[in-house]
Protein backbone atom coordinates (compact mmCIF):
# COMPACT_ATOMS: atom_id res chain seq x y z
CA UNK A 1 0.00 0.00 0.00
CA UNK A 2 1.53 3.23 -1.16
CA UNK A 3 -1.04 5.95 -0.82
CA UNK A 4 1.45 8.51 -2.07
CA UNK A 5 0.93 7.09 -5.58
CA UNK A 6 -2.50 8.59 -5.91
CA UNK A 7 -1.31 12.07 -4.91
CA UNK A 8 -0.12 13.25 -8.36
CA UNK A 9 -3.73 12.81 -9.48
CA UNK A 10 -5.56 13.79 -6.29
CA UNK A 11 -3.64 17.00 -5.52
CA UNK A 12 -4.53 18.61 -8.88
CA UNK A 13 -8.11 17.32 -8.61
CA UNK A 14 -8.63 18.77 -5.14
CA UNK A 15 -6.91 21.98 -6.15
CA UNK A 16 -9.23 22.32 -9.11
CA UNK A 17 -12.29 21.78 -6.95
CA UNK A 18 -11.18 24.24 -4.27
CA UNK A 19 -10.36 26.85 -6.92
CA UNK A 20 -13.98 26.67 -8.09
CA UNK A 21 -15.04 28.07 -4.71
CA UNK A 22 -12.63 31.01 -4.87
CA UNK A 23 -13.13 31.98 -8.49
CA UNK A 24 -13.44 35.70 -7.79
CA UNK A 25 -10.21 35.96 -5.80
CA UNK A 26 -7.69 35.85 -8.61
CA UNK A 27 -4.61 36.46 -6.49
CA UNK A 28 -5.44 33.64 -4.07
CA UNK A 29 -6.12 31.37 -7.04
CA UNK A 30 -2.67 32.11 -8.47
CA UNK A 31 -0.79 31.52 -5.21
CA UNK A 32 -2.80 28.42 -4.43
CA UNK A 33 -2.20 26.88 -7.86
CA UNK A 34 1.53 27.52 -7.72
CA UNK A 35 1.82 25.98 -4.25
CA UNK A 36 -0.19 22.96 -5.33
CA UNK A 37 1.98 22.41 -8.43
CA UNK A 38 5.10 22.70 -6.28
CA UNK A 39 3.74 20.04 -3.94
CA UNK A 40 2.93 17.81 -6.93
CA UNK A 41 6.49 18.18 -8.21
CA UNK A 42 7.89 17.30 -4.77
CA UNK A 43 5.63 14.25 -4.48
CA UNK A 44 6.58 13.08 -7.97
CA UNK A 45 10.29 13.34 -7.21
CA UNK A 46 9.74 11.37 -4.00
CA UNK A 47 7.89 8.59 -5.82
CA UNK A 48 10.50 8.48 -8.59
CA UNK A 49 13.24 7.94 -6.02
CA UNK A 50 11.14 5.39 -4.12
CA UNK A 51 10.85 3.37 -7.33
CA UNK A 52 14.63 3.30 -7.71
CA UNK A 53 15.03 1.76 -4.26
CA UNK A 54 11.86 -0.39 -3.96
CA UNK A 55 11.04 -1.27 -7.57
CA UNK A 56 7.67 -0.67 -9.20
CA UNK A 57 5.04 0.60 -6.76
CA UNK A 58 1.39 -0.32 -6.71
CA UNK A 59 -1.68 1.01 -4.92
CA UNK A 60 -4.89 -1.02 -4.85
CA UNK A 61 -7.89 1.28 -4.50
CA UNK A 62 -10.04 0.29 -1.56
CA UNK A 63 -7.78 -2.67 -0.84
CA UNK A 64 -9.20 -4.73 -3.74
CA UNK A 65 -6.34 -6.81 -5.07
CA UNK A 66 -5.54 -6.96 -8.79
CA UNK A 67 -6.77 -8.27 -11.16
CA UNK A 68 -10.17 -7.64 -9.52
CA UNK A 69 -9.69 -4.14 -8.20
CA UNK A 70 -8.34 -1.07 -9.90
CA UNK A 71 -4.73 -0.22 -9.17
CA UNK A 72 -2.37 2.62 -9.80
CA UNK A 73 1.04 1.35 -10.89
CA UNK A 74 4.07 3.63 -10.98
CA UNK A 75 7.22 2.67 -12.83
CA UNK A 76 10.05 4.99 -13.82
CA UNK A 77 8.52 5.66 -17.26
CA UNK A 78 5.21 6.91 -15.92
CA UNK A 79 6.77 8.87 -13.07
CA UNK A 80 9.26 10.64 -15.36
CA UNK A 81 6.30 11.81 -17.44
CA UNK A 82 4.27 12.79 -14.37
CA UNK A 83 7.19 14.82 -13.06
CA UNK A 84 7.75 16.56 -16.40
CA UNK A 85 4.03 17.29 -16.66
CA UNK A 86 4.01 18.95 -13.25
CA UNK A 87 7.09 21.06 -13.99
CA UNK A 88 5.88 22.16 -17.42
CA UNK A 89 2.45 23.04 -16.04
CA UNK A 90 3.97 25.04 -13.21
CA UNK A 91 6.02 27.17 -15.59
CA UNK A 92 3.09 27.59 -17.97
CA UNK A 93 0.94 28.77 -15.04
CA UNK A 94 3.45 31.57 -14.41
CA UNK A 95 3.08 32.54 -18.07
CA UNK A 96 -0.70 32.40 -17.72
CA UNK A 97 -0.64 34.89 -14.84
CA UNK A 98 0.49 37.68 -17.13
CA UNK A 99 -1.10 36.64 -20.39
CA UNK A 100 -4.42 34.87 -20.00
CA UNK A 101 -6.46 37.85 -18.79
CA UNK A 102 -8.96 38.49 -16.03
CA UNK A 103 -11.96 37.19 -17.97
CA UNK A 104 -10.41 33.73 -18.26
CA UNK A 105 -9.21 33.72 -14.68
CA UNK A 106 -12.73 34.39 -13.44
CA UNK A 107 -14.26 31.81 -15.76
CA UNK A 108 -12.70 28.72 -14.16
CA UNK A 109 -9.48 28.75 -16.21
CA UNK A 110 -7.26 27.48 -13.39
CA UNK A 111 -9.67 24.77 -12.18
CA UNK A 112 -9.83 23.27 -15.64
CA UNK A 113 -6.06 23.37 -16.05
CA UNK A 114 -5.87 21.34 -12.87
CA UNK A 115 -8.59 18.90 -13.96
CA UNK A 116 -6.59 18.47 -17.17
CA UNK A 117 -3.46 17.69 -15.16
CA UNK A 118 -5.40 15.25 -12.97
CA UNK A 119 -6.52 13.41 -16.11
CA UNK A 120 -3.04 13.42 -17.63
CA UNK A 121 -1.37 12.14 -14.45
CA UNK A 122 -4.13 9.57 -13.93
CA UNK A 123 -3.53 8.25 -17.45
CA UNK A 124 0.18 7.92 -16.77
CA UNK A 125 -0.33 6.10 -13.48
CA UNK A 126 -3.25 3.77 -13.96
CA UNK A 127 -2.75 0.04 -14.31
CA UNK A 128 -6.20 -0.69 -15.70
CA UNK A 129 -7.27 -0.26 -19.29
CA UNK A 130 -10.77 0.96 -18.49
CA UNK A 131 -9.42 3.36 -15.91
CA UNK A 132 -7.11 4.65 -18.64
CA UNK A 133 -10.22 5.38 -20.71
CA UNK A 134 -11.78 7.25 -17.78
CA UNK A 135 -8.64 9.32 -17.19
CA UNK A 136 -8.49 10.08 -20.92
CA UNK A 137 -12.04 11.38 -20.67
CA UNK A 138 -11.26 13.55 -17.63
CA UNK A 139 -8.38 15.03 -19.61
CA UNK A 140 -10.41 15.46 -22.80
CA UNK A 141 -13.43 17.04 -21.12
CA UNK A 142 -11.17 19.64 -19.52
CA UNK A 143 -9.46 20.21 -22.86
CA UNK A 144 -12.86 20.76 -24.53
CA UNK A 145 -13.56 23.51 -22.00
CA UNK A 146 -10.10 25.06 -22.34
CA UNK A 147 -10.24 25.10 -26.14
CA UNK A 148 -13.63 26.83 -26.22
CA UNK A 149 -13.14 29.14 -23.23
CA UNK A 150 -13.18 32.67 -24.60
CA UNK A 151 -15.64 31.80 -27.36
CA UNK A 152 -13.93 33.47 -30.31
CA UNK A 153 -15.29 32.31 -33.64
CA UNK A 154 -12.13 30.44 -34.68
CA UNK A 155 -12.10 28.62 -31.35
CA UNK A 156 -15.67 27.43 -31.80
CA UNK A 157 -15.02 26.31 -35.37
CA UNK A 158 -11.93 24.32 -34.36
CA UNK A 159 -13.49 22.95 -31.19
CA UNK A 160 -16.31 21.34 -33.16
CA UNK A 161 -13.73 19.40 -35.17
CA UNK A 162 -11.66 18.68 -32.07
CA UNK A 163 -14.58 17.43 -30.01
CA UNK A 164 -16.12 15.30 -32.75
CA UNK A 165 -12.83 13.62 -33.60
CA UNK A 166 -12.17 12.91 -29.94
CA UNK A 167 -15.66 11.61 -29.25
CA UNK A 168 -15.26 9.30 -32.22
CA UNK A 169 -11.89 8.02 -31.04
CA UNK A 170 -13.18 7.58 -27.48
CA UNK A 171 -15.97 5.48 -28.89
CA UNK A 172 -13.43 3.35 -30.75
CA UNK A 173 -11.49 3.07 -27.49
CA UNK A 174 -14.58 1.79 -25.71
CA UNK A 175 -15.31 -0.68 -28.50
CA UNK A 176 -11.71 -1.91 -28.38
CA UNK A 177 -11.95 -2.37 -24.62
CA UNK A 178 -15.20 -4.31 -25.04
CA UNK A 179 -13.65 -6.58 -27.69
CA UNK A 180 -10.63 -7.19 -25.51
CA UNK A 181 -12.72 -7.94 -22.43
CA UNK A 182 -14.90 -10.26 -24.48
CA UNK A 183 -11.83 -12.10 -25.75
CA UNK A 184 -9.63 -12.50 -22.69
CA UNK A 185 -11.95 -11.51 -19.83
CA UNK A 186 -9.82 -9.00 -17.97
CA UNK A 187 -8.85 -5.34 -18.17
CA UNK A 188 -5.97 -5.14 -15.74
CA UNK A 189 -3.00 -4.41 -17.97
CA UNK A 190 -0.60 -6.84 -16.30
CA UNK A 191 -3.27 -9.56 -16.25
CA UNK A 192 -4.05 -8.87 -19.92
CA UNK A 193 -0.40 -9.33 -20.72
CA UNK A 194 -0.27 -12.68 -18.91
CA UNK A 195 -3.44 -13.99 -20.55
CA UNK A 196 -2.45 -12.89 -24.04
CA UNK A 197 0.95 -14.52 -23.57
CA UNK A 198 -0.85 -17.72 -22.55
CA UNK A 199 -3.31 -17.95 -25.44
CA UNK A 200 -0.93 -16.41 -27.96
CA UNK A 201 -1.59 -13.23 -29.90
CA UNK A 202 -3.61 -14.70 -32.74
CA UNK A 203 -5.05 -12.78 -35.69
CA UNK A 204 -8.14 -11.78 -33.69
CA UNK A 205 -6.11 -10.19 -30.90
CA UNK A 206 -3.84 -8.51 -33.44
CA UNK A 207 -6.88 -6.91 -35.06
CA UNK A 208 -8.03 -5.71 -31.64
CA UNK A 209 -4.56 -4.30 -31.06
CA UNK A 210 -4.88 -2.35 -34.31
CA UNK A 211 -8.12 -0.81 -33.03
CA UNK A 212 -6.14 0.45 -30.05
CA UNK A 213 -3.45 1.64 -32.45
CA UNK A 214 -6.05 3.70 -34.35
CA UNK A 215 -7.43 5.15 -31.11
CA UNK A 216 -4.06 6.20 -29.75
CA UNK A 217 -2.96 7.46 -33.17
CA UNK A 218 -5.95 9.76 -33.25
CA UNK A 219 -5.17 11.01 -29.75
CA UNK A 220 -1.45 11.45 -30.31
CA UNK A 221 -1.54 12.64 -33.91
CA UNK A 222 0.34 9.71 -35.40
CA UNK A 223 -0.58 9.73 -39.11
CA UNK A 224 -4.13 10.73 -38.14
CA UNK A 225 -3.01 14.28 -37.31
CA UNK A 226 -5.35 16.13 -39.68
CA UNK A 227 -7.23 17.69 -36.76
CA UNK A 228 -4.13 18.78 -34.86
CA UNK A 229 -2.71 21.90 -36.55
CA UNK A 230 -6.10 23.61 -36.62
CA UNK A 231 -7.11 22.81 -33.06
CA UNK A 232 -3.75 23.70 -31.58
CA UNK A 233 -3.59 27.10 -33.25
CA UNK A 234 -7.03 28.29 -32.13
CA UNK A 235 -6.90 28.61 -28.30
CA UNK A 236 -4.92 31.20 -26.30
CA UNK A 237 -1.14 30.71 -26.11
CA UNK A 238 -1.01 29.05 -22.71
CA UNK A 239 -3.70 26.55 -23.59
CA UNK A 240 -2.06 25.78 -26.93
CA UNK A 241 1.24 25.26 -25.12
CA UNK A 242 -0.40 22.94 -22.58
CA UNK A 243 -1.99 20.94 -25.40
CA UNK A 244 1.17 20.85 -27.50
CA UNK A 245 3.29 19.82 -24.54
CA UNK A 246 1.01 17.32 -22.82
CA UNK A 247 -2.00 15.99 -24.73
CA UNK A 248 -0.33 14.21 -27.63
CA UNK A 249 2.19 12.79 -25.14
CA UNK A 250 -0.55 10.95 -23.28
CA UNK A 251 -1.51 9.18 -26.50
CA UNK A 252 2.14 8.33 -27.08
CA UNK A 253 2.45 7.03 -23.52
CA UNK A 254 -0.60 4.81 -23.98
CA UNK A 255 0.82 3.46 -27.22
CA UNK A 256 4.15 2.64 -25.57
CA UNK A 257 2.41 0.96 -22.65
CA UNK A 258 0.03 -1.10 -24.73
CA UNK A 259 2.53 -2.18 -27.38
CA UNK A 260 5.35 -3.05 -25.00
CA UNK A 261 3.30 -4.62 -22.21
CA UNK A 262 0.27 -6.21 -23.84
CA UNK A 263 0.56 -6.62 -27.62
CA UNK A 264 4.26 -7.25 -28.06
CA UNK A 265 4.08 -10.71 -29.62
CA UNK A 266 3.52 -9.75 -33.25
CA UNK A 267 6.01 -6.96 -33.93
CA UNK A 268 6.03 -8.03 -37.60
CA UNK A 269 2.49 -6.67 -37.90
CA UNK A 270 1.86 -4.03 -35.26
CA UNK A 271 5.31 -2.51 -34.93
CA UNK A 272 5.73 -2.51 -38.71
CA UNK A 273 2.50 -0.56 -39.05
CA UNK A 274 3.65 1.85 -36.34
CA UNK A 275 6.93 2.31 -38.23
CA UNK A 276 5.18 3.05 -41.51
CA UNK A 277 2.77 5.44 -39.77
CA UNK A 278 5.67 7.19 -38.02
CA UNK A 279 7.49 7.62 -41.35
CA UNK A 280 4.44 9.08 -43.10
CA UNK A 281 3.79 11.32 -40.07
CA UNK A 282 7.30 12.74 -40.23
CA UNK A 283 7.09 13.30 -43.99
CA UNK A 284 3.65 14.93 -43.75
CA UNK A 285 4.65 17.01 -40.74
CA UNK A 286 7.81 18.20 -42.51
CA UNK A 287 5.85 19.28 -45.56
CA UNK A 288 3.33 21.08 -43.34
CA UNK A 289 6.04 22.80 -41.30
CA UNK A 290 7.64 24.43 -44.33
CA UNK A 291 4.44 25.01 -46.30
CA UNK A 292 2.77 27.61 -44.10
CA UNK A 293 3.53 31.24 -43.33
CA UNK A 294 1.34 31.28 -40.22
CA UNK A 295 3.64 30.86 -37.24
CA UNK A 296 1.00 28.95 -35.25
CA UNK A 297 0.61 26.43 -38.06
CA UNK A 298 4.39 25.98 -38.29
CA UNK A 299 4.80 25.19 -34.60
CA UNK A 300 1.76 22.88 -34.65
CA UNK A 301 3.30 20.87 -37.49
CA UNK A 302 6.47 20.67 -35.41
CA UNK A 303 4.41 18.78 -32.81
CA UNK A 304 3.42 16.31 -35.53
CA UNK A 305 7.03 15.69 -36.58
CA UNK A 306 8.05 15.02 -32.98
CA UNK A 307 5.25 12.46 -32.56
CA UNK A 308 6.55 10.57 -35.57
CA UNK A 309 10.10 10.77 -34.27
CA UNK A 310 9.27 9.47 -30.80
CA UNK A 311 7.37 6.53 -32.25
CA UNK A 312 10.35 5.51 -34.35
CA UNK A 313 11.73 4.27 -31.04
CA UNK A 314 8.65 2.11 -30.44
CA UNK A 315 8.63 0.83 -34.02
CA UNK A 316 12.26 -0.22 -33.71
CA UNK A 317 11.70 -1.53 -30.18
CA UNK A 318 15.23 -2.09 -28.96
CA UNK A 319 16.16 -1.05 -25.44
CA UNK A 320 18.44 1.73 -26.68
CA UNK A 321 15.80 3.11 -29.03
CA UNK A 322 13.20 3.09 -26.25
CA UNK A 323 15.65 4.98 -24.03
CA UNK A 324 16.04 7.50 -26.81
CA UNK A 325 12.28 7.85 -27.13
CA UNK A 326 11.93 8.47 -23.40
CA UNK A 327 14.65 11.15 -23.44
CA UNK A 328 13.04 12.71 -26.47
CA UNK A 329 9.56 12.54 -24.91
CA UNK A 330 10.73 14.48 -21.85
CA UNK A 331 12.69 16.92 -24.01
CA UNK A 332 9.73 17.41 -26.31
CA UNK A 333 7.30 18.23 -23.50
CA UNK A 334 9.58 21.03 -22.35
CA UNK A 335 10.68 22.37 -25.71
CA UNK A 336 7.21 22.31 -27.30
CA UNK A 337 5.85 24.30 -24.38
CA UNK A 338 8.66 26.80 -24.90
CA UNK A 339 8.12 26.90 -28.67
CA UNK A 340 4.39 27.54 -28.34
CA UNK A 341 4.96 30.19 -25.69
CA UNK A 342 7.55 32.00 -27.82
CA UNK A 343 5.30 31.85 -30.88
CA UNK A 344 2.36 33.16 -28.83
CA UNK A 345 4.51 35.95 -27.41
CA UNK A 346 5.64 36.96 -30.90
CA UNK A 347 2.02 37.19 -31.98
CA UNK A 348 1.22 39.20 -28.85
CA UNK A 349 4.09 41.62 -29.55
CA UNK A 350 3.48 42.16 -33.25
CA UNK A 351 -0.26 41.58 -33.50
CA UNK A 352 0.16 39.31 -36.50
CA UNK A 353 0.76 35.61 -36.99
CA UNK A 354 2.18 35.83 -40.51
CA UNK A 355 5.94 35.62 -40.62
CA UNK A 356 6.36 37.92 -43.61
CA UNK A 357 4.79 40.76 -41.61
CA UNK A 358 7.36 40.53 -38.81
CA UNK A 359 10.94 41.67 -39.01
CA UNK A 360 13.88 42.59 -36.83
CA UNK A 361 12.33 41.48 -33.56
CA UNK A 362 15.76 40.67 -32.12
CA UNK A 363 16.61 44.40 -32.06
CA UNK A 364 13.64 45.18 -29.85
CA UNK A 365 13.60 42.00 -27.81
CA UNK A 366 17.10 40.52 -27.80
CA UNK A 367 16.44 37.93 -25.07
CA UNK A 368 13.37 36.60 -26.90
CA UNK A 369 15.46 36.24 -30.04
CA UNK A 370 18.21 34.31 -28.32
CA UNK A 371 15.68 32.08 -26.57
CA UNK A 372 14.16 31.27 -29.94
CA UNK A 373 17.65 30.49 -31.21
CA UNK A 374 18.23 28.05 -28.34
CA UNK A 375 14.84 26.43 -28.95
CA UNK A 376 15.67 25.98 -32.61
CA UNK A 377 19.02 24.35 -31.88
CA UNK A 378 17.51 22.17 -29.18
CA UNK A 379 14.74 20.94 -31.50
CA UNK A 380 17.22 20.25 -34.25
CA UNK A 381 19.33 18.20 -31.80
CA UNK A 382 22.54 20.23 -31.47
CA UNK A 383 24.76 18.61 -28.79
CA UNK A 384 24.75 20.51 -25.53
CA UNK A 385 20.96 20.89 -25.62
CA UNK A 386 18.28 18.41 -24.63
CA UNK A 387 17.23 17.20 -28.09
CA UNK A 388 20.61 15.67 -28.82
CA UNK A 389 20.72 12.67 -26.50
CA UNK A 390 17.29 11.39 -27.55
CA UNK A 391 18.12 11.61 -31.23
CA UNK A 392 21.42 9.80 -30.74
CA UNK A 393 19.82 6.90 -28.90
CA UNK A 394 16.91 6.58 -31.32
CA UNK A 395 19.41 6.61 -34.16
CA UNK A 396 21.61 4.01 -32.48
CA UNK A 397 18.60 1.78 -31.84
CA UNK A 398 17.45 2.10 -35.45
CA UNK A 399 20.91 1.09 -36.69
CA UNK A 400 20.99 -1.91 -34.32
CA UNK A 401 17.64 -3.08 -35.69
CA UNK A 402 18.65 -2.36 -39.27
CA UNK A 403 15.80 0.09 -39.86
CA UNK A 404 17.81 2.35 -42.12
CA UNK A 405 14.91 3.85 -44.09
CA UNK A 406 13.19 4.89 -40.88
CA UNK A 407 16.47 6.28 -39.60
CA UNK A 408 17.00 8.32 -42.76
CA UNK A 409 13.49 9.76 -42.61
CA UNK A 410 13.85 10.53 -38.89
CA UNK A 411 17.06 12.47 -39.33
CA UNK A 412 15.87 14.18 -42.50
CA UNK A 413 12.82 15.36 -40.58
CA UNK A 414 15.19 17.01 -38.07
CA UNK A 415 16.62 19.03 -40.93
CA UNK A 416 13.12 20.08 -41.93
CA UNK A 417 12.43 21.11 -38.33
CA UNK A 418 15.59 23.20 -38.41
CA UNK A 419 14.65 24.73 -41.75
CA UNK A 420 11.09 25.55 -40.74
CA UNK A 421 12.31 27.32 -37.59
CA UNK A 422 15.19 29.02 -39.40
CA UNK A 423 12.60 30.50 -41.72
CA UNK A 424 10.85 32.02 -38.71
CA UNK A 425 14.18 33.17 -37.30
CA UNK A 426 15.35 34.81 -40.53
CA UNK A 427 12.01 36.42 -41.32
CA UNK A 428 10.97 37.58 -37.88
CA UNK A 429 14.10 38.19 -35.87
CA UNK A 430 16.64 39.30 -38.46
CA UNK A 431 16.44 42.24 -40.81
CA UNK A 432 15.37 45.80 -40.23
CA UNK A 433 12.94 46.37 -37.44
CA UNK A 434 9.52 47.49 -38.61
CA UNK A 435 8.33 48.43 -35.13
CA UNK A 436 8.89 52.14 -34.52
CA UNK A 437 9.54 53.28 -30.99
CA UNK A 438 6.00 54.55 -30.40
CA UNK A 439 4.33 51.20 -31.14
CA UNK A 440 6.89 49.24 -29.19
CA UNK A 441 4.86 46.82 -27.03
CA UNK A 442 6.83 46.17 -23.85
CA UNK A 443 7.59 42.52 -23.17
CA UNK A 444 6.20 41.78 -19.72
CA UNK A 445 8.58 40.31 -17.13
CA UNK A 446 5.91 37.73 -16.31
CA UNK A 447 6.11 36.44 -19.88
CA UNK A 448 9.88 36.49 -20.07
CA UNK A 449 10.57 34.64 -16.80
CA UNK A 450 8.78 31.39 -17.76
CA UNK A 451 10.50 31.39 -21.14
CA UNK A 452 13.88 31.79 -19.49
CA UNK A 453 12.98 28.96 -17.09
CA UNK A 454 12.14 26.69 -20.01
CA UNK A 455 15.40 27.72 -21.68
CA UNK A 456 17.35 26.82 -18.54
CA UNK A 457 15.49 23.49 -18.38
CA UNK A 458 16.37 22.51 -21.93
CA UNK A 459 20.06 23.34 -21.32
CA UNK A 460 20.04 21.55 -17.97
CA UNK A 461 18.40 18.50 -19.48
CA UNK A 462 21.04 18.40 -22.19
CA UNK A 463 24.04 18.97 -19.94
CA UNK A 464 22.65 16.95 -17.03
CA UNK A 465 21.48 13.96 -19.07
CA UNK A 466 23.92 11.94 -16.99
CA UNK A 467 21.85 12.56 -13.86
CA UNK A 468 18.70 11.45 -15.61
CA UNK A 469 20.32 8.34 -17.11
CA UNK A 470 19.60 5.86 -14.26
CA UNK A 471 15.89 6.72 -14.29
CA UNK A 472 15.61 6.50 -18.06
CA UNK A 473 17.50 3.24 -18.36
CA UNK A 474 15.33 1.75 -15.60
CA UNK A 475 12.23 2.93 -17.46
CA UNK A 476 13.44 1.41 -20.74
CA UNK A 477 14.41 -1.83 -19.02
CA UNK A 478 10.91 -2.15 -17.52
CA UNK A 479 9.29 -1.44 -20.87
CA UNK A 480 11.41 -4.02 -22.67
CA UNK A 481 10.86 -6.69 -19.98
CA UNK A 482 7.12 -6.84 -19.33
CA UNK A 483 7.60 -9.56 -16.70
CA UNK A 484 9.05 -6.98 -14.29
CA UNK A 485 5.81 -5.00 -14.50
CA UNK A 486 3.62 -8.09 -14.33
CA UNK A 487 5.51 -9.40 -11.35
CA UNK A 488 5.12 -6.13 -9.47
CA UNK A 489 1.38 -6.00 -10.12
CA UNK A 490 0.25 -9.59 -9.75
CA UNK A 491 2.77 -11.35 -7.54
CA UNK A 492 4.08 -8.95 -4.95
CA UNK A 493 1.93 -8.11 -1.96
CA UNK A 494 2.14 -4.43 -1.23
Amino acid at each position, binding site marked *: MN*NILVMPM*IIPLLTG*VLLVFIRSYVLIQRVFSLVSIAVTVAVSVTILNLIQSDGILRLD*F*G*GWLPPYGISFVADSFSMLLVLTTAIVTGILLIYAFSSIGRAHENMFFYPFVFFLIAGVNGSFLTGDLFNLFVCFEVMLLSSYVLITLGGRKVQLVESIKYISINVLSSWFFLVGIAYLYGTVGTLNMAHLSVRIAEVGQGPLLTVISIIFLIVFSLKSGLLLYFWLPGSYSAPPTVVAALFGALLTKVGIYAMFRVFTLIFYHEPGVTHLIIGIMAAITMIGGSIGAIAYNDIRKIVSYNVVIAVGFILVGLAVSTEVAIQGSIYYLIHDMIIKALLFVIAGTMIYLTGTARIQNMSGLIRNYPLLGWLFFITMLSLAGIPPLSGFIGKVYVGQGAIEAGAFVLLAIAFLSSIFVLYSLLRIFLNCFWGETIINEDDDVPLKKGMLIPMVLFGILTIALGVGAEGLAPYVSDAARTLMNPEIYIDAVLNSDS
Partner: protein
Amino acid sequence: MKINDVILQTVTKIVVFIILTFGVELFLSGHYNPGGGFIGGLVLSSAFVLLYLVFDIETVHKGIPFDFKKVAAFGVLLAVGTGLGSVLFGASFLTQTASHFNLPVFGATELSTVMLFEAGVALTVVGVVVTIILSISEDV
Protein backbone atom coordinates in the same frame (compact mmCIF):
# COMPACT_ATOMS: atom_id res chain seq x y z
CA MET B 1 -50.25 35.13 -25.88
CA LYS B 2 -49.77 33.78 -22.43
CA ILE B 3 -49.86 30.02 -22.21
CA ASN B 4 -52.22 28.66 -19.61
CA ASP B 5 -50.14 26.22 -17.57
CA VAL B 6 -52.20 25.98 -14.39
CA ILE B 7 -52.62 22.23 -14.74
CA LEU B 8 -48.94 21.69 -15.39
CA GLN B 9 -47.94 23.82 -12.42
CA THR B 10 -50.41 22.15 -10.07
CA VAL B 11 -49.36 18.66 -11.13
CA THR B 12 -45.69 19.57 -10.88
CA LYS B 13 -46.03 20.79 -7.30
CA ILE B 14 -47.11 17.29 -6.27
CA VAL B 15 -45.04 15.26 -8.74
CA VAL B 16 -41.79 16.96 -7.75
CA PHE B 17 -42.11 15.52 -4.27
CA ILE B 18 -42.77 12.04 -5.64
CA ILE B 19 -39.69 12.31 -7.86
CA LEU B 20 -37.55 13.59 -5.00
CA THR B 21 -38.72 10.78 -2.71
CA PHE B 22 -38.06 8.23 -5.42
CA GLY B 23 -34.60 9.74 -5.96
CA VAL B 24 -33.74 9.40 -2.29
CA GLU B 25 -35.13 5.86 -2.27
CA LEU B 26 -32.95 4.92 -5.26
CA PHE B 27 -29.96 6.56 -3.62
CA LEU B 28 -30.41 4.64 -0.35
CA SER B 29 -31.19 1.29 -1.95
CA GLY B 30 -28.00 1.48 -3.98
CA HIS B 31 -25.95 -0.24 -1.32
CA TYR B 32 -27.15 -3.76 -2.03
CA ASN B 33 -29.74 -3.29 -4.78
CA PRO B 34 -29.82 -1.46 -8.11
CA GLY B 35 -29.50 2.24 -7.49
CA GLY B 36 -26.85 4.43 -5.97
CA GLY B 37 -25.50 7.95 -6.10
CA PHE B 38 -25.34 8.33 -9.86
CA ILE B 39 -28.86 7.13 -10.62
CA GLY B 40 -30.32 8.77 -7.53
CA GLY B 41 -28.61 12.00 -8.52
CA LEU B 42 -30.02 11.81 -12.05
CA VAL B 43 -33.56 11.33 -10.71
CA LEU B 44 -33.13 14.16 -8.20
CA SER B 45 -31.86 16.48 -10.91
CA SER B 46 -34.81 15.58 -13.13
CA ALA B 47 -37.03 17.00 -10.39
CA PHE B 48 -35.08 20.27 -10.48
CA VAL B 49 -35.16 20.39 -14.28
CA LEU B 50 -38.94 19.88 -14.18
CA LEU B 51 -39.24 22.83 -11.79
CA TYR B 52 -37.13 24.97 -14.10
CA LEU B 53 -39.30 23.97 -17.08
CA VAL B 54 -42.62 24.66 -15.43
CA PHE B 55 -41.76 27.80 -13.49
CA ASP B 56 -39.22 30.28 -14.76
CA ILE B 57 -35.58 30.35 -13.72
CA GLU B 58 -35.91 33.38 -11.39
CA THR B 59 -38.77 31.86 -9.39
CA VAL B 60 -36.98 28.57 -8.86
CA HIS B 61 -33.78 30.37 -8.03
CA LYS B 62 -35.60 32.24 -5.26
CA GLY B 63 -36.71 28.94 -3.76
CA ILE B 64 -33.42 27.07 -4.26
CA PRO B 65 -30.73 29.72 -3.96
CA PHE B 66 -27.77 27.45 -4.75
CA ASP B 67 -25.06 27.94 -7.34
CA PHE B 68 -25.22 24.51 -8.91
CA LYS B 69 -21.62 24.75 -10.15
CA LYS B 70 -20.58 24.92 -6.52
CA VAL B 71 -22.89 22.04 -5.64
CA ALA B 72 -21.05 19.94 -8.22
CA ALA B 73 -17.67 21.06 -6.88
CA PHE B 74 -18.75 20.27 -3.33
CA GLY B 75 -19.85 16.82 -4.46
CA VAL B 76 -16.44 16.06 -5.94
CA LEU B 77 -14.82 17.40 -2.79
CA LEU B 78 -16.96 15.09 -0.63
CA ALA B 79 -16.30 12.03 -2.79
CA VAL B 80 -12.54 12.58 -2.96
CA GLY B 81 -12.55 13.55 0.71
CA THR B 82 -13.94 10.18 1.78
CA GLY B 83 -11.21 8.54 -0.28
CA LEU B 84 -8.59 10.61 1.48
CA GLY B 85 -10.25 9.90 4.83
CA SER B 86 -9.21 6.28 4.50
CA VAL B 87 -5.64 7.44 3.92
CA LEU B 88 -5.75 9.17 7.30
CA PHE B 89 -6.68 5.87 8.93
CA GLY B 90 -3.74 4.14 7.28
CA ALA B 91 -5.78 2.16 4.78
CA SER B 92 -5.55 2.23 0.98
CA PHE B 93 -7.07 5.17 -0.85
CA LEU B 94 -10.87 4.81 -1.25
CA THR B 95 -11.17 2.01 1.32
CA GLN B 96 -14.72 1.93 2.68
CA THR B 97 -15.99 0.54 5.94
CA ALA B 98 -19.38 -0.19 7.49
CA SER B 99 -20.84 -1.28 10.80
CA HIS B 100 -24.19 -1.71 12.55
CA PHE B 101 -25.69 0.81 14.93
CA ASN B 102 -28.84 0.82 17.05
CA LEU B 103 -30.55 4.07 16.18
CA PRO B 104 -33.56 5.33 18.16
CA VAL B 105 -36.13 5.44 15.35
CA PHE B 106 -34.73 3.14 12.67
CA GLY B 107 -33.66 0.28 14.94
CA ALA B 108 -30.65 -1.77 13.86
CA THR B 109 -29.20 0.15 10.93
CA GLU B 110 -26.11 -0.39 8.86
CA LEU B 111 -24.17 2.80 8.37
CA SER B 112 -21.27 2.85 5.92
CA THR B 113 -18.78 5.42 4.72
CA VAL B 114 -19.64 4.58 1.15
CA MET B 115 -22.87 6.56 1.78
CA LEU B 116 -20.79 9.73 2.04
CA PHE B 117 -18.95 8.86 -1.15
CA GLU B 118 -22.25 8.20 -2.94
CA ALA B 119 -23.68 11.44 -1.56
CA GLY B 120 -20.73 13.19 -3.19
CA VAL B 121 -21.48 11.44 -6.48
CA ALA B 122 -25.16 12.37 -6.23
CA LEU B 123 -24.40 16.04 -5.54
CA THR B 124 -21.96 16.13 -8.45
CA VAL B 125 -24.54 14.64 -10.82
CA VAL B 126 -27.24 17.06 -9.67
CA GLY B 127 -24.89 20.02 -9.97
CA VAL B 128 -23.58 19.08 -13.40
CA VAL B 129 -26.96 18.17 -14.93
CA VAL B 130 -28.67 21.34 -13.72
CA THR B 131 -25.71 23.48 -14.82
CA ILE B 132 -25.80 21.93 -18.29
CA ILE B 133 -29.55 22.44 -18.65
CA LEU B 134 -29.36 26.01 -17.38
CA SER B 135 -26.51 26.95 -19.72
CA ILE B 136 -28.35 25.48 -22.69
CA SER B 137 -31.50 27.40 -21.75
CA GLU B 138 -29.54 30.67 -21.53
CA ASP B 139 -28.45 30.29 -25.13
CA VAL B 140 -31.95 29.92 -26.57
